[in-house]
Structure formats: structure tokens, C-alpha cells
């Protein structure tokens, strides 16, 4: 895959380039937004990793230009030093596919990149039963098997759980979830979604010790995240949070 990295901080850009190269992607690095934008007239990228805070054109403005340009559908991952929920929502609503808060943690970053690229390539025929990690989803009976138990879900819970697993690591907005699972956003109480998320989280035991975290993206929606191993810099995660 061809990736573009835009960051005025060369160290960050180098790290990101290294991580992506390790995952087998080819990377072009740009120090500023206009450089990327002019290059994009000749080059097609499968992913743009965009730093938020840059002198001159900010990441958000670059994102908007990309979305308005001829390559508007290019996936964009925002990198930000800002750990504020409002910024995250602003970025996602402006059309970013995902965001990662600095400092970049390799596993998390690559999982997000993977989710974006997977989605871009995804065109999966519906199967009667699907496996996601330890979970086996049976569409016919709307049941989920894991660790030797079988859990019966309601139709909406099943559909919602499947949507989360099919979009692993992706931030999913409330509006999108409601439209996808309920078919409408009208007249649904905002708590409905929260209540269903809470139900599937309890029924499928979507907890850290199962290797999954079902996280709220505050004021935006939810994200299901897989955990491979404990992060080595645990303290940072503990106090800084992630969203």
C-alpha cells in the first residue's frame, strides 16, 4: 500500500514511517500540508497519516482540502497531540477515518491502520456463521459461541455486535450505528444505543481480559478495540487515557 505521512515533526514522521514500513507499506513523507496537496495531483495514496498541529495549513484544513479534492475518498488517519474529546469529534466529523493520540504506540497505531485499510478493501459476502477471535457468530440463530458457552442475543444486539466486530478498531459514530442497525435515527432515544452497547458488552464479556475493549468515543460514538498484549508504558495509558 502507498501511504503519505504529513508531519512537521521529523522525529514523529520518521517513527511513523518506520512503523508503516515494518508493516510492509511504502511511505512518502511530507513536512507540510501544501506539499502533500500538490503531490496528490499526480500521486494516488491508499492512506494519508496527517498531523493535526502544523505551522501554516493545519491538519484539519489539509483534511478538508483532501475531502473536497478529486481524491476525496482517500482514507485519512489523524495524528494529534491534543487529547481532547472535542478535537477528536471535530476531526472525525470533518471526515477523518480515525485518529491516534501521540505518543504513538506501535500496536495501537498499526491496528488502526489495519482497520482502515481493511475497510477500504472490504467486500465480504455474508456467511451464516462468522468467527471473530474467540467469538463464533451464528446468523441463523442469532447466537454467539465463545469459551464453550452459547449466548442468545436479540436481533438488534446481534446486528450491533457484528457491526462492531466487522469494524474492529474503527470509531463508529452514533448516527452511523443507528442507521446501520436500526435503519433510522429518527425518534430513537439516545439512551437506546447506550443500553444495547451495555447489553452486548455484558453478554459477550467484551472486557480487557478477553482481549477486547468496547470504548466510548465521547460525544461521537463507540469503538471496539482488540488488545494483543499489555502495553509496556502502562502508566502513560493510565493517566493520559486515550480518548
Amino acid at each position, binding site marked *: 500500500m502507498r501511504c503519505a505521512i504529513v508531519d512537521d515533526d521529523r522525529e514523529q514522521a520518521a517513527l511513523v514511517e518506520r512503523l508503516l514500513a515494518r508493516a510492509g507499506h511504502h511511505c512518502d513523507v511530507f513536512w507540510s500540508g501544501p506539499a502533500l496537496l500538490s503531490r496528490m495531483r499526480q500521486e494516488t495514496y491508499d492512506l494519508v497519516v496527517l498531523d493535526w498541529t502544523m505551522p501554516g495549513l493545519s491538519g484539519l484544513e489539509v483534511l478538508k482540502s483532501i475531502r473536497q479534492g478529486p481524491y476525496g475518498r482517500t482514507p485519512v488517519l489523524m495524528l494529534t*497531540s491534543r487529547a481532547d474529546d472535542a478535537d477528536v469529534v471535530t476531526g472525525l466529523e470533518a471526515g477523518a477515518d480515525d485518529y491516534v493520540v501521540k505518543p504513538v504506540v506501535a500496536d495501537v497505531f498499526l491496528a488502526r491502520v489495519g482497520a482502515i485499510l481493511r475497510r477500504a478493501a472490504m467486500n465480504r459476502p455474508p456467511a451464516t456463521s462468522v468467527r471473530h477471535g474467540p467469538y463464533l457468530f451464528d446468523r441463523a440463530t442469532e447466537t454467539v459461541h465463545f469459551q464453550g458457552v452459547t449466548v442468545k442475543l436479540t436481533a438488534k444486539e446481534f446486528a450491533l455486535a457484528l457491526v462492531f466486530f466487522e469494524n474492529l478498531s474503527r470509531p463508529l459514530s452514533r448516527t452511523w450505528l443507528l442507521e446501520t442497525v436500526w435503519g433510522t435515527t429518527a425518534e430513537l432515544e439516545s439512551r437506546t444505543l447506550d443500553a444495547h452497547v451495555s447489553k452486548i458488552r455484558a453478554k459477550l464479556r467484551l472486557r480487557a481480559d478477553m482481549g477486547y*475493549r468496547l470504548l466510548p468515543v465521547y460525544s461521537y460514538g463507540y469503538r471496539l478495540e482488540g488488545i494483543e498484549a499489555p502495553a509496556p508504558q502502562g502508566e502513560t495509558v493510565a*493517566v493520559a*487515557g486515550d480518548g
Partner: protein
Amino acid sequence: MLARLRGGLLGEWLALWGIALALVAAATAWAPFARLDNVLHDALLRAAPARPSPDILIVAIDDRSVHALGRWPWPRAVHADLLGILEKAGPRVIGYDVLFVEPERGTPGDEWLARALAAAAPVVVPYLVEVPGEGSAASRIVLPAGPLARAAHLGHAIVKADADGVVRALPRLEADGQPLAHLADVVAELARTGRPPSAIVPASGAVIGVRPALRIRFREGPAGYPQVSFSDVLAGRVPPEFLRDRIVLVGATAAGLGDRHATPMSGRLETMPGVEVLANHVDSTLAGDRIRLPPAWAQFLFTALPLSLLMLGLLRFGPRVNLWLGLLWAAVTLAASALLLWLGRVWFAPATALVGLALIYPLWGWRRLDFANRFMGAELEALASEPAILPRRHPPPPVGDPVARQVALMHAAIQDVRDLRRFVGESLDSLPDATLVTDLEGRILIANDAAVDLFHGRLAGPLLGLGLEPALQALAGDEPELMREARDLLDAIARGDRATRSTREWRLADGTDLDVRLAFFSDDAGRPLGWILRFVDITPLREAERQREEALRLLTHDMRSPQASILAILEAEGAGLPDGLRDRIARYASQTLALADQYVQFARAALTRPVLEPFDLNEAALDAADDLWPLARARGNRISTTVPDGEALVLGDRALVTRAIQNLLGNAIKYGRRGTAVALAVTRAGDDWCLAVHDEGPGIPPAQLPSLFEPFRRLAAPEGRPPEPGAGLGLAFVKRVVERHGGQVFATSTPGRGSTFGFRLPAAPPRPDQAADATPAAAARARAAS
């Protein structure tokens, strides 16, 4: 208050009506307006007189006869001669209204007259009734002298005028309860049936009584009947055919003979001879059109009806309408009276009703005015005794003359209202906030100076009298969001929705931030009067908030970026460094990052308003536990999470509360012993949800517990371990967040066994109605603005 006024007036009205009915009853009994009634009665009779019957002929003892036959009284022989001539002509009845009570001495005249009377067709002659009689006798009855009394039919010939001297009926007398016949009645009865009426001729001393008599329907007159002179008949100048079969009444018409009476037909000066009165009576009796007087109850109803109708009108209509109604009822009463008299031959006296109609109008006006006056007086006194809003400067009202007192009170009240109006206007003008006062429909009644300034340049023309709609549209400009907000506000006003959102925040096109507040005001009784719309200019406030926010963002970014870069360098190129050095640099960089995050979060929790949405505290607890899971694993600790079945709904900012729980968990993991469990539990405690984090650490001395939640406090590190990194803001953040959500933090510890930190938050109602307001988009907006 007005109900009391109305009730009081109704009482007055009922009283007046009762009094009017009582007066009508009294007037029916005593007829105080009989004179007016009589005038009306006579005028009505004159207005539509009946035609005299040609069957009746008067033989008049007129001035010409007196001149021809000599001085009155004439010898009986003259009368006998006349009777002889009449007898030959053959009249139907003769009524001879000449008294023959004294015998004629020295001539055989009485004998001759007696023979003539007996020979002629039935003749009726009068007898004399005098009341009282001579001495102690009740009456004296004098019959015609000697043989005359037996030769003819007898009848008394008393003509009695009403109190006003006008004859309207011939009296019906009775003697000791037996009816006496009037000469005219006898004539009429003889003419009709040929037989005299059954009546007695009383003896002297009988008690004479008078019974009510039907009135005479007078014919055209005076001098309406054919009349021939006595002397002409006597001289044979009247042809016998002229007399044949007629009712002939003989009587005096000469002015000198005195027998003349005022009648309804005779006007002011003319009089009518007695014999013509008799003729009218006979005529009216034979025609059957004599006039009855109604029974008292009927007369009462006749009088009471128009009065009651007018009184109903007084209750219902205004003065002008009632004036016309009064005139209408008077006319109707009079017309009814006339028609009943002419066609129904019954006389309903209208005078009482007319007088009543004329009186009730001013009477009611007076009562109403009096009552309104008293009411106003009472209200003014009450007002004067109530506590005043503004200091009172009026002299105390004079005691004594009630009118002077009332005027003084009124003057004071009006002055108070004027002062108050000025006070309200100046108060509003002195307010720094633009304020509009509108009526219920949203028409602007008052706009203070600040409001005029606010709308200056946005709105052409004056604010006063304008509807809110154009005013708000001028504020909203072309911004679709503001136009929607303005529409929403106008709808709330149109619906009279008092429970509508009372505050809104508008950002105008020119960058002005307005806090728009809508309030309702009502009168003393709580009925709605209008709306007060206040625009608070919070531009500087919002600007300061934005600058602060910007500063925080810059701070966090500028502090975080270099640390993130250090970590990136270590990650990318740190392979060349000794392991220990790389880890130490990484740890310090991470600490600095954590400090920046902690500081910013703490500042933001203190400075910005939390967004209140219902969320499940259980979920927040699970989020935090999942978040801390890697740290716990790295430290060899477990997090055991216990949450209740069902939702633990609280109202608040889920992100802030989750971070607070993370801080509690992080502390518990940091200070707990390796390999022990950290217990996170959500439980119900009364109206609150309680979240507690328990560690099995060394515990904290009780004396240190209260100060732990203060900023920049840090615990001494457990023995044998390096000091934990941190700015001492973790628990202070927890306390601030929890208190801003209306909750409380708590901490308990048993040294050597472990500590429990936690908080309580008020439980939200299970189905929060704020849900509508807490849509993700709205929350995001509110967040972006904060």
C-alpha cells in the same frame, strides 16, 4: 375582585327590583297617580268616541222652553200635557228626569200627572235619596208625591263625580245590601226587555252603600244625541213619527237649572247636562260597551311587567340602550292600555307603570354609582393600607368628609401608579441587559435603553408596538440556526408554554454572544399578562473562555509534542542506547506527558461547565477498568469489577466521570500491594449511586485522609518503593468532577489493611426526559462552545 363587584351589583339590583314590586303593589291599592290615569282615560275616550245611538231622543227643558213657558218649576199640568203628546206618538220608554217630590197644593195637577204617567208608555221618574237623613237617620228617601209614586216606575237619579269632579259612571247604590236601580238602568232595562229590573225602592233610614260600577263609554258629545225642545213638543211642532219607538229622555239642559256635569267628553270648560249623561249611560248599557276595571292582581301584573322588563335590561345593557328601552316600554304600556280600553272595554291604568319606568332609570343609576363608589372607596382604602413598593410621600387622607377622603386616596393611588410606572421604566433602563417586555401575543410594550442599543442598526423603525417576530428575525439575520432558535422561541410564546427552556445562547453574525432568557409575568391573581425577554451580552465572557481554552490547548500541545517526539526518537533510534538509560528517558518523558494531561484536565474540570447527559455509571466503571487493565497486568494486580444488574443512570459528563474513576483505579493499583486485587464496585445508596475502589495496600493514616483531595497533595511513597510520579492532581480532579456533578467524594482507610476511595452521585430518573436535549449533536455543539 370584579366578581365581588358584580355580585354586589346583583344584590343591589335584586333589592331595587323587590322595592319596585312592593311600590307597585302599594300603588295598585292606593292609586296615587289616579289623576294622571283619569286624564289618560278621558283623553283615550275622546280620541275614539263611539257614535250615539239614534234610538235615543232628548226632550230638553232648555232656555227656550223656560222662556216660552215661564219660570221653573212648571205646574204639573204642563208635564201632564207633554206626557199626553208623547203618549200619542208612542215612544218605547220615557225617562222623565224631573223630581216631583213636593205635592202641588191647591190644584189637581198631581192627579192629572198621575193619570198621564199611568197612561203613557212605561215612564220612569226619579226619587230622592239624601245621605245622611234627618236627625240620626242614615238616609232620607223621598218618593214622588202622592199618587205619582204609584203611577210610574221609579229609579234614583244620583249623578256622582269622581274625585276630580268628572263623571265617568253612574253609581250603583244599595240599601241595607239590596240593590237600588238607577233611573237610567230602569230605562235601559225597560227598553231592552219591556220589564223593570228587580230592585227595591227603599224606605228612609236604610243604610245606603255604593258598589263599583262599570264606567260609561261616552258617545260623541256634548249634545251628541238628537234633541228637541220641550216647548216645541208641547206646541205640536215635533212630528209624532220623530218620537215613535224611541227612548225618550226628558230633562233639564237650561244653564240656569244647574243640572250639568263635567264628563270625559266635555273637555276643560264644557259641561254635559245630567239628562245627556243618562242618555250616554243607557246607550252604553244597551250597546254592552261599558268599561270594566280589572281585578287588582291583573292591574298589578300590568304595572309590574314593563318595570321588570326594564330592570332586566338594566342588568344586561348599557345606559344608552336602556334609555331607548325605557321609552319603548312606556309606549308599549300606553298602547296596550289604549287597545284594551277601546277593544277590550277594560281599563288598565298605565300611570303607575309610566311613572315607575321614569323613576327606575335614575334610581338604578344612582344605586349603581353609589355601589361602585363604595366599592372603589373600599379598594382604595385597602390599597392605601397595603405595603407600598415605593416610599409614600402623600399626606394621610383627611378623616371626616368621605368624598374628600376618597378623592385624596384616589389621588394618592394615581400618583403611586405614575411613580411606579416611572420607576419601572427607569429600573429597566438602568439594567445593563437588553430587556423587552411583551404582551401575551408577543407585541413589544417596553424596551429599555440597552434593548434600543442592541437593535440599533439591525432594525429600522421603533421597537415599541412591534411584534417579537420581526425583532427576533432582525437579530437572527440569515443564520439558519438562529432563525430556527427564533422560531422555536416564538412558538413557545405562541403556545403560552411557560415550561419552555428559559435560557438560550445565541451567537450573532457579528460575533456577539447573547444569553437569551425568557420569563413569564402574571397579575396579582396569577393570570398570564406577558413575557419578559432578556438578552445578556456575554461576548466578553465567551471570549475570555475561548482564550482560556486556547491557552489550555496550546499548553497541552506545546508540552506534549516534545515529549511525544522524545518517545518517538527512543522508539525509532533508541536501540543504540543502553537499556536502562532508554527506559529512564522514556519514563520521564511519559511522566511529563501525564503531568500535562493531568493539569489540563484538572483546569478544564474546574473551568468548563460539564455537559449533563444521562449515562450508565456501570459502563463508565467498566471503561475505566478496561483502560487500567494493562497497567494492572503490568503490576501483577487484578481489577475485580462488581456492578449491579440493570443500569445505574446518573446525569453528567461520562468522559469526566470515567477519568475520575480511572484516577481512583490508578491510585489503587499504584499503592496496592503487588499481586492483590483492586475491587471496583458500584452500589445503590439511597437516592445515590455509590462507586468505591478498594485496594489492599498499606493504608493511609486517618489524619492524612481529609487533605488527600486537595490539589498538589501527594502521599508519601510506601516503604521500599520509589516515589510515584504525579502532580498530586489525581484526587483533586476526582473531587472537582464529583462535586460539579452534585456528588460527594469519600475515603476510608485501615492502616495495614487497605484503603477505599470513592464517590456518590445522585441517581438520575430511569427514563430521563432530558434525553431529547442530549442528542449527540447537541452535546457536541455544547462541548465545542465550551
